[in-house]
């Protein structure tokens, strides 16, 4: 409504500020000629692969840092430092390493996501009340079993936060990567929209990006968090 009203006020010319109707039409068009669907498909596939790799790397690295003091003192501060670097800054390096390929984009996603997952895992492990470990040990649990059945589930609330954060970082990195880097995908559609000076398409793609992000959040992370909160008794 506000959008429509602002549009009607005519502060900006229509080619800079399209009406909701035009954006909806662009959305419809995009889906009808399958370009949005293809873009979504490509982007989602990329992010799923990249995110999955980040998840494995991040959790393993987080556990290792939490476990070995020497790693914490060396790699730990490096990770915090790297976290400051926006992941898109890895793109030039990735292009030189991998060329203009899928791997370059995956690399950017992974660099964006896995650090925050590793940090969250590490802090989750650090904050486990020692009494849980003692209780498990006195019941004869040790080694991998201790990690799988006590340390990991005890740290899971914190890991889940890291996963959620990692997901949004991954999604952002992917879009940034696709914008710069010519490839099919939602980010690329956004770029085409700009090149064709088609503001309606730009906005339609933005809406699609937000929607896809939200759907994944609702489907996966919101459910996971809700379940954890119920188990741990953090709901009212």
């Amino acid at each position, binding site marked *: 409504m506000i959008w429509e009203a602002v549009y009607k006020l005519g502060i900006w010319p229509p080619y800079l500020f399209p009406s909701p109707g035009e954006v909806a039409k662009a959305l419809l068009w995009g889906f009808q000629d399958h370009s949005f669907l293809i873009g979504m498909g490509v982007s989602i596939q990329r992010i799923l692969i990249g995110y999955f790799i980040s998840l494995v790397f991040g959790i393993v690295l987080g556990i290792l840092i939490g476990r070995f003091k020497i790693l914490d003192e060396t790699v730990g501060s490096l990770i915090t430092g790297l976290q400051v670097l926006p992941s898109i800054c890895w793109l030039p390096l990735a292009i030189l390493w991998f060329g203009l390929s899928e791997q370059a984009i995956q690399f950017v996603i992974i660099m964006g996501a896995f650090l925050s997952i590793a940090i969250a895992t590490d802090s989750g492990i650090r904050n486990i009340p020692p*009494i849980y470990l003692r209780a498990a040990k006195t019941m004869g649990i040790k080694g991998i079993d201790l990690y799988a059945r006590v340390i990991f*589930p005890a740290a899971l609330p914190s890991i889940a936060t890291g996963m959620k954060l990692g997901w949004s970082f991954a999604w952002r990195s992917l879009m940034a990567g696709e914008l710069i880097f010519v490839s099919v995908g939602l980010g690329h559609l956004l770029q085409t929209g700009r090149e064709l000076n088609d503001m309606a398409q730009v906005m339609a793609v933005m809406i699609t990006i937000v929607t896809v992000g939200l759907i994944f959040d609702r489907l996966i992370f919101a459910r996971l968090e809700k379940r954890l909160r119920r188990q741990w008794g953090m709901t009212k």
Partner: protein
Amino acid sequence: MLLSIEGVTKEFIAQHDKVLVLDKISLQIKPGEFVCFVGPSGCGKTTLLNLIAGLEQSTDGLIRQNGEKITSPGSDRVVIFQETALFPWLNVIQNVEFGLVHRMEAQKRHEIARALLNLVHLSRFEKAYVHQLSGGMKSRVAIARALALNPSVLLMDEPFAALDAQTRDILHEEIEEIWSKTKQTIIFVTHNVREAVRLGDRVFVFTARPGRIKKEFLIELARPRDINSEGVVIYAKQIQQELREEIEKFLKEEVDREWTLKKADFLRPAGIDLGSGI
């Protein structure tokens, strides 16, 4: 002889300073005995329990179980903590089954857990999560979880200290009943003297830091005992006397060198109250 503790000494290093916590403790525990440790706070009774559990290593001396040296934690010596340490990511029955996973198939451990929950009167709550339970119920689950492993020694570290008196009374009865059924050896750490007399076959009184065994009391009272019975109170009084000296020593060290415990002189003479409250 099930457990034999031989000249166990434990030192902690705190800011370049060595603190002697346990000083050459020696004692023997027979199978099926109910033994209580009482002492002023900081006397190292919990440390001794952790040493028996294998969660910590002694500086000197050794602890043997059936002749074998204890070096690491094991499921034959399970600790029940005051904080219960139940796992919030598991429900009640999963908590009870926790130590049995990988030891037997699901069906069998489920049966064992059910039977134990029955024993501690919690069968209705098997699917509940830990945060939904009251303090007493948590203690019961912790007891069931430890019993599931069928340990030869049950180590209880002030398990009921955080509970209200009524719940504690009931749990005393239940733990005594379980003990007489399973014939497990129980080592029970508490600062509550009456609780120790109520439950123990033998009560060891510890000195203030460094912890030594000051005196051993053999409680020759018929079971089940009433915590308010005359017999319990008489024993408790003797133990309290021993403890009082230690607490005084401890307070002098911790609080103030001038500290002395006053001798019950705050009681008003009975005459003043005569006739009041009628």
